[in-house]
């Protein structure tokens, strides 16, 4: 037994020796002076990104609904124009909130009630004809929200005159108006609910968000990182890869693109990527760069090969943005006429998914899973 004890003791001594040796390496001494200010990061993202995004979205949903009311009471070229541009504006604002599917947004199923595309046009038309529907069930996720409005206001190969007539002289015009009004009201209502849910004088989710400073499953950082990765994959898969034909053995599926009828897919994707980048950087829409994941990764000295992980992520964001901006015209045309350009954007987004979902989560100790589970 004495022998064993002496073995143990020598092991301990050896350990002290090694740890001391190691201290000599300069990069090992870069121990951070103080811990990273996680609550500061959460406060910045909550106060300067999330709440303003919800406020913006809520305001644009207000004018979206007002323009809808005006169009419904008097369908004309003029009122249609106004409504279409209110739609575009509101849809773009949506891209800035889609990442935050937790708290009030999770309760309201925002993604599923606002942006499941492509929409089911046959079902929409039969619901309009029947004039008898309840849009709250899970089966109805693809007959409402922005994709349904996109279809109703832009149609397929329809000019504005044809669309106005669908809401004025068509046999189902009155039903169609009611339908449009119903789905836009739902967008407006939910926008109001999630905004209020975050407000300090409302549901005050902001305080829950700021005060959960751990990194485990269900903490604010855990939720944010999980949703950031999930939303980025949505961008890569649903917005780009599927229309490009990645899921259909290379056969492009242009009608599967987001905002297929209005054709604003690429600008929506750009808005979305900008929003994701801002979450990563902790940067507000007014370009005020506060504490974000970039600071967090640098604080813990996360490396990526010979450089920092932050530098790799930043350069990948800018590469993805620039490749996305090279897609000209409608995405639904580009996937057929110029698939190589779309493919280039797809590849950059894929690399970005890897950096965020693999490297960033690993460095931050956040687990990607929607199930709280034991490890080894």
């Amino acid at each position, binding site marked *: 037994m004495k022998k064993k004890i002496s073995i143990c003791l020598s092991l301990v001594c050896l*350990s002290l020796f090694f740890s001391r040796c190691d201290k000599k390496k300069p990069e090992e001494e870069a121990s951070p002076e103080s811990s990273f200010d996680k609550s500061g990061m959460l406060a910045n993202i909550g106060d300067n990104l999330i709440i303003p995004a919800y406020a913006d979205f809520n305001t644009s949903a207000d004018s979206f609904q007002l323009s809808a009311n005006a169009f419904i009471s008097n369908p004309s070229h003029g009122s249609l124009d106004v409504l279409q541009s209110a739609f575009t504006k509101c849809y773009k604002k949506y891209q800035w909130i889609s990442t935050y599917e937790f708290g009030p947004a999770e309760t309201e199923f925002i993604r599923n009630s606002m942006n499941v595309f492509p929409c089911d046009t046959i079902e929409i038309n039969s619901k309009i004809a029947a004039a008898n529907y309840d849009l709250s069930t899970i089966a109805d996720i693809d007959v409402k929200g922005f994709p349904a409005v996109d279809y109703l206001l832009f149609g397929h190969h329809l000019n504005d005159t044809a669309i106005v007539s669908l809401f004025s002289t068509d046999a189902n015009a009155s039903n169609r108006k009611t339908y449009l009004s119903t789905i836009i009201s739902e967008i407006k209502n939910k926008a109001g609910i999630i905004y209020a849910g975050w407000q300090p004088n409302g549901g005050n989710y902001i305080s829950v968000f700021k005060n959960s400073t751990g*990194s485990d*499953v269900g903490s604010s950082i855990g939720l944010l990182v999980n949703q950031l990765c999930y939303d980025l994959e949505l961008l890569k898969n649903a917005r780009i890869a599927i229309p490009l034909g*990645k899921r259909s053995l290379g056969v492009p599926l242009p009608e599967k693109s987001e905002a297929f009828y209005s054709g604003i897919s690429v600008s929506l994707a750009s808005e979305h990527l900008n929003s994701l980048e801002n979450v990563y950087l902790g940067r507000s829409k007014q370009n005020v760069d506060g504490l974000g994941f970039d600071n967090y990764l640098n604080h813990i000295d996360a*490396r990526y090969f010979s450089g920092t992980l932050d530098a790799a992520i930043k350069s990948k964001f800018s590469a993805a943005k620039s490749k996305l901006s090279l897609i000209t015209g409608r995405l639904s045309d580009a996937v057929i006429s110029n698939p190589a350009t779309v493919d280039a954007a797809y590849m950059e987004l894929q690399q970005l998914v890897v950096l965020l979902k*693999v*490297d960033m989560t690993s460095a931050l100790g956040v687990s*990607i899973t929607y199930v*709280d*589970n034991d490890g080894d």
Partner: protein
Amino acid sequence: MITQRISNLRSRLTEQVHIAPLSLFRVLFGLMMFASVLRFWLKGWITELYVKPQFFFKYYGFEWVEVPNEQGLYFLFALVAISSLFVMLGLFYRISSVAFFLSFTYVELLDKTNYLNHYYFVSIVALLMIFLPAGKYFSLDVRLRLTQKITHVQRWLIVVIQLQLGIVYFFAGLAKLNYDWLINAQPLRIWLQPHTDMPVIGFLMDKIWLAYFFSWFGAVYDLTIPFFLLNKRTRYFAYATVIAFHVLTAILFPIGMFPYVMIVSTLIFFPAQFHLKIIAILRSIFTFFKSGESDEPSVALVFRPTVKKILISLFVIHFIFQVIIPFRFLLYPGNLFWTEQGFRFSWRVMLIEKAGKAFFHVRDPDSNREGEVMMNNYLTPNQEKMMATQPDMILQYARFLEKKYEETGMRDPQITVESYVTLNGKGSRLFINRYVDLTRINDSFTNKWWILPLEEK
């Protein structure tokens, strides 16, 4: 000298000792298992891990294991729960210990995704328990006169459990003797820093010296704790260390019941008097067990010679395997933590930080068209995550996809994987050869040449 030692050891192992440590171990093990199953059930993991998934990763050689339907699953888990309770009570111990081992192990065989060393440990101990006379004292079987009470057994019957525990710790310690763990303090540097918001000691959690201290302390602890627990003079101090170590790991890491299982299991290193005291306390609470056991005549367990011979040979074979299995990785080239060839069943506990993402590509050779397989169709996020870093699972999933595409009418689908993995924060890089058609490969124990080597930079 050596013969002297051997005969000393032999007489020590065959010495008659009180059975109390073994029977109390049975009670505590049964209780922990019951609590574990209950926790698993209440957390909704039966549904989450076994009802929801559409695809299950089977162990090599155990592809025949069927996942029961929802009702069957709940029945299976009920069986685990009831049999663990019966083991704790020592009721129909022969049957209940077998039932617990079989039901628990069957659950573990359902999906490799959920492999944990902790579950493997439970299966092994449950198997050993079947052959140990743990139900012959302080049990309902004895109380109800279903079996003869035994008070004394030869020491080796208790040493079996001690040795198994010792192996778990010692190999866990051996596994830590690697460059990343000792010299880079990885993965603890990654794992400790998210805990800076912990009360009282949180501010230390991103200090690099703490990661070094924990790494080295953990390695020394694992390698030496069995010996310190065996030694009379160091035992109480060692046990205090056991509690401190496991409580700390329970706070820092999501490892469920494992720390508590180890805390109660290591009590088996204490002498019989200690266990008799606890049993006396338990009897004063559960008075049903009191009567007729107050002054007990000594009854020693006597095996028939052939039974004893068989039993001892079985244990010897078991422990030979226990020692060999962790070293099987030496037969494979490459970095063990990267390729994970020979990684499981070796007590490599909380050893590496590995994360990955796999993109599968399918190509139809007839039309020469290709595309990406969108994953969420068949795998849960947890399965997807676990698969991405383990080559055998990637291969299994590729072969599953092959079948799925064949069902759609594709004649000879080719499946390749573009997977990126980061090990201990080194940076994500390609893991599997991007161009190898995985449908041409069958899983086996031979070297998986299609894993790309880990190049340290």
